[in-house]
């Protein structure tokens, strides 16, 4: 399940809702990862753009991978502005097996950071500044760059 929310995530409500929807399904482990915006480098918060069609494809591919291991993934992400000390991202896995769940939350979050089509901006004096130096180029980048062939 993938949820996109405008602004900060209501962490308590999302965790409660996910736990409540999963607790009777005989999964033994529920591991949420909650990302919280840190106050650093003088930012007021972060802001996000999301390209939903590719995010959905990426998430659905992971859900199929989880299903093959009898696990299930849940994810919530913010669109727009998220102020310091509030949450922009929650990912969770449920699985009958602890070790499967622990490995999957790690691999899922790391792959999310490298491949989810989401763009991050620092909010500085009310303006959005693309966090270019903290961003990761996607596979195949540079395909359309002029190559100066003779």
């Amino acid at each position: 399940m993938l949820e996109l929310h405008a602004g900060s995530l209501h962490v308590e409500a999302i965790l409660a809702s996910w736990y409540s929807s999963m607790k009777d399904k005989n999964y033994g482990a529920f591991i949420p990862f909650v990302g919280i915006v840190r106050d650093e480098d003088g930012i007021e918060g972060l802001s996000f753009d999301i390209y939903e069609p590719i995010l959905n494809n990426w998430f659905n591919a992971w859900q199929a991978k989880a299903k093959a291991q009898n696990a299930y993934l849940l994810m919530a992400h913010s669109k727009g502005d998220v102020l310091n000390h509030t949450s922009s991202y929650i990912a969770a896995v449920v699985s009958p097996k602890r070790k499967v769940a622990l490995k999957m939350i790690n691999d899922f979050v790391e792959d999310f950071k490298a491949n989810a089509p989401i763009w991050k901006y620092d909010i500085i004096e009310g303006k959005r500044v693309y966090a270019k130096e903290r961003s990761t180029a996607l596979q195949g980048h540079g395909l359309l760059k002029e190559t100066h062939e003779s």
Partner: protein
Amino acid sequence: MAKVEFLGPMARPSIEVDIQNLQELKTFFKHDAQLQEWLAICAVAVNDTLVCALDMPISSNDKISLLPPVCGG
């Protein structure tokens, strides 16, 4: 006409182009100096699937998306 979207921080309006493949799109962008900086770091999706070959044939109604470096979470 295929549609070209410039996603996220590129913040350019979409354009429509009459091309047969991505090589022609590359040629089309050749003299856009400001865009070249983005093209060096952008990945390319056709109809929401990332591609990595310039000979990818493009049809009318195809959607081409340019994706700058990402940072979710």
